[in-house]
């Protein structure tokens, strides 16, 4: 029967990646590519999911897109699967170039692969996996959003997300070291220190736009007396947009560079900055492509790291943050790693007035930026904003002034939402607050 519910008229968005990509397609090419892709995926998992889904719609309310569009079924998880994967399967791959464009738009810009819906489907059907499979097909068809594709190219060419040249990376570290030496005596950002305990890794945007986060990390490391290092060579970037564009080969390659950097430096573990998707890529997605069941070197998210530093007294909190704060739980370390309690421990330790969001922890709403959606760039920003009214409402209800977002995608995505819905708040990373809250022993302070 498949009744089409009316969908709000939206202004046509032009994305060169989708447009030009679809132009190169012919029905034959689509059919062959799709069927090869499905065969290569193996199909058993997909088959199990498709045969099990009872079309009950119980997953709908999991999705912030659905909730924010007042229950428009086009945006429900199963609704999106219907418009993409079912469409592909039903037609046995015989879909038109225009449909491919439409399918790509849904898969890339209307789902954050946040996995909330697997917690709402009684069968635990992994919609994010299905949508990822759709993205894989779109990648193979060459119909991907321009900006996301560009980021995937950057990963492929430079092993980082931002087209950063090797000298720019190294120079940023030197610059941050110089800067923070004015505050901490002999603060070092050790490069290529073989045998250090920890390799700290970050995502490309840190050296590109947010270099002081690297300085923050260096200050925390130095004050806590951690034996750490950065690689000066490729592999320092833990992020992975190729994972979201559907280019699994590049995803695997980027992960390999990352792990091999750690193994070459003989570190015991990788501690990564406050990023969620990067954690997912290193911890339980990207590693699998090259046959690592778990990361060959343990991977620890910043939240866990701060938690241990504070809990074990490696750093002392002396100046708590006063303004009311709330915490946005990043999907990829909540559903992705169950760090809800640790995050709250850290936030409570460094802030005086913490107001929790509801729902939270594993049940949080996604920021709508994750899953590569924000990386689809400016053309899709408005759509992303409209797709997450519930987050705005949820944040507003806390009455907080500051939203702590221990994830880069969330950080930018939430800042956008705050601006769009005029919430009068702003976002901070944990480390932004932590650096000012910790005690710097007199002996470590630089002479002014």
């Amino acid at each position, binding site marked *: 029967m498949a009744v089409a519910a009316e969908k709000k008229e939206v202004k046509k968005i032009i994305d*060169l*990646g989708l447009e*030009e990509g679809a132009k190169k397609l012919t029905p034959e090419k689509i059919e062959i590519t799709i069927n090869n892709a499905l065969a290569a995926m193996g199909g058993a998992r997909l088959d199990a999911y498709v045969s099990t889904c009872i079309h009950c719609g119980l997953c709908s309310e999991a999705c912030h897109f659905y909730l924010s569009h007042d229950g428009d079924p086009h945006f429900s998880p199963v609704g999106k699967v219907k418009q993409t994967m079912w469409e592909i399967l039903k037609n046995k791959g015989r879909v038109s170039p225009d449909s491919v464009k439409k399918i790509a738009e849904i898969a890339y810009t209307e789902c954050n692969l946040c996995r909330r819906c697997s917690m709402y489907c009684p069968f635990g059907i992994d919609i994010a996996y299905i949508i990822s499979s759709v993205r894989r097909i779109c*990648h*193979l068809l*060459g119909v991907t959003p*321009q*900006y996301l*594709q*560009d980021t995937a*190219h950057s990963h*492929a*060419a*430079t092993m980082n997300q931002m087209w950063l*040249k*090797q*000298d720019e990376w*190294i120079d940023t570290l*030197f610059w941050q070291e110089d800067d923070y030496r004015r505050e901490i005596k*002999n603060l*070092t950002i*050790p*490069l*290529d*220190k*073989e045998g250090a305990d*920890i390799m700290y890794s970050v995502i490309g945007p840190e050296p590109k736009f947010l270099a002081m986060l690297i300085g923050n990390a260096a200050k925390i490391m130095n004050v806590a007396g951690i034996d750490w290092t950065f690689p*000066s*060579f*490729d592999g320092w970037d833990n992020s992975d947009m190729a994972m979201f564009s559907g*280019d699994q*080969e590049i995803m695997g*390659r980027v992960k390999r560079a990352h*792990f*091999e950097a750690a*193994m*070459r*430096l*003989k570190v*015991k*573990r990788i*501690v990564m900055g406050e990023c969620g998707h990067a954690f997912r890529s290193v*911890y339980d997605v990207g590693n699998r492509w*090259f*046959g*690592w*069941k*778990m990361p*060959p*070197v*343990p*991977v*620890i998210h910043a939240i*866990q*790291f701060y938690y*241990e*530093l504070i809990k*074990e007294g*490696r750093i002392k909190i002396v100046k708590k943050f006063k303004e009311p704060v709330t915490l946005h739980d990043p999907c990829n370390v909540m559903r992705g790693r169950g760090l809800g309690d640790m995050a709250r421990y850290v936030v409570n330790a460094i802030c005086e007035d913490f107001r929790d969001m509801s729902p939270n922890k594993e049940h949080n709403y996604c920021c709508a930026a994750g899953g590569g959606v924000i990386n689809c*760039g400016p053309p899709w920003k408005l759509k992303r904003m409209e797709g997450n009214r519930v987050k705005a409402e949820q944040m507003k209800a806390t009455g907080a002034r500051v939203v702590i977002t221990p994830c880069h995608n969330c950080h930018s995505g939430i800042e956008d939402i705050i601006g769009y819905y005029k919430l009068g708040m702003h976002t901070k990373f944990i480390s932004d607050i932590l650096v000012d809250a910790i005690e710097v022993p007199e002996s470590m302070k630089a002479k002014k």
Partner: protein
Amino acid sequence: MEATQKSEEKVQPISKQGIPSPLHTATPLDRGKDAESRMDWDTKEKMIANTDEWKSRYAEVRPFNVSEDGEKIGAVVQNDDETFTVCINGNPWEETYEKIWSFKFTNEGKAACLVLKDNAWTVALDGIPWNEKFDYAWNLQIAPNGRSIGINIKKDDQYGVCLGDKPWVQGFADVRNLFISSDGTKAAASVAVKRLAEADIFNFQKGVWTVAVNGVPWDKNFVNVWGLAFSPDGRHVAAETRINLYDYAVVVDGNMWPQTYKCVCEPCFTAKNNVIAPVKIAKGWTLALDGKPIWGPFIQVWPPKFSSDGQKIAAVVASEFGRWTIAVDGSAWKQTFSDTVLDPVFSPDGKRVAAIAKESKDPMNMGSSLHSIEGNDRWTIVVDGIPWNQDFDMIWDPVFSPDGSTVAAKAEINGKYCVAVNGKAGKKMFDALWSPVFSPRGDKILVRCIGGGKYYRYVVPLDEI
């Protein structure tokens, strides 16, 4: 990059010791045949430097490095006026710099590093800077035979390579994956020949990357170019490429193998100038020799290593998903490991193979950033498929005795280091330690270590370790 460049130019011999070796270098590390025989194997104990005293003398002492023969220890140090220099055996270089990094020793005991002065970067060798200066310099590499130093450079917004104080003539939009030939006379790198506008995905997909050998680019472009390798005679270059978004190819001297793959890893040359590379085919990964599969398939195969006579091939493989081991000439060791296995090392006679392996009892539990988890992340050495009885917090590359009968490695236990021999931790623990070196007869081990704030060079009979 105005200087002209002649590859025949004489270059200074330097060894590769001191830099962490990339995990999958295509050419085996060649430390120079007689290096060991020239060392002092008679003096049992030498206190070379009081490193604690340096710490009181300088505002800051950065990590130490020692020479191959153990006779020298050095570090980048900061003077009270916030300038930096290098201190060797207690004696600082006269010249001071604004910044110094990438400090390492050559086997002649020369100290090489990258230095910054008056906004210009260059290489300093034993305190003497190169003539050429750059806006930026990084990735200091020493040729496999130790005969020259190569670096990545940036000048006037152009990227390039400088090999032995001779920069490439042509500059590029980007240069990565520098690879130096084993005789140290040639350098290859992947280069971007065109600068692209922001988010120009279309031209990128047309291909702007290629390989430049001694600064001269191939005439064909690729979407991506990654790992490179020189043939042992330095006359051929192989590259790992992607020719469109989906097809991967091995390219030798600009010519593609007839077959493309779903994925490839960096190629390397056999002793007979054949090219070998891990490639992904429908059933999994295999090694392909000049385009023909010779092994496997396995779940994964990493780039191989060869015995010194070139007769045997060994590579890290995953024989099932998430289980790693070594395959020698295509047959995998029975024992597999959960976390990782690192590159195989052949004994000098090529009969034995050793590798680092890591195992975890409960790999799903990666709980702590500050502590080890009981039973997890245990490192050890596996020799011919049999792991050592003892495991360690960390272990460094295995070193074979000249006759291949003994395997030694630097090992870490509770933050201290020892020399482990044939699976047993040495008696003495040190605060810092460098990898053991066997005497030419294999009866003694050179132990380069720091203990009690002093740097020592010990020559220890094998049975007293």
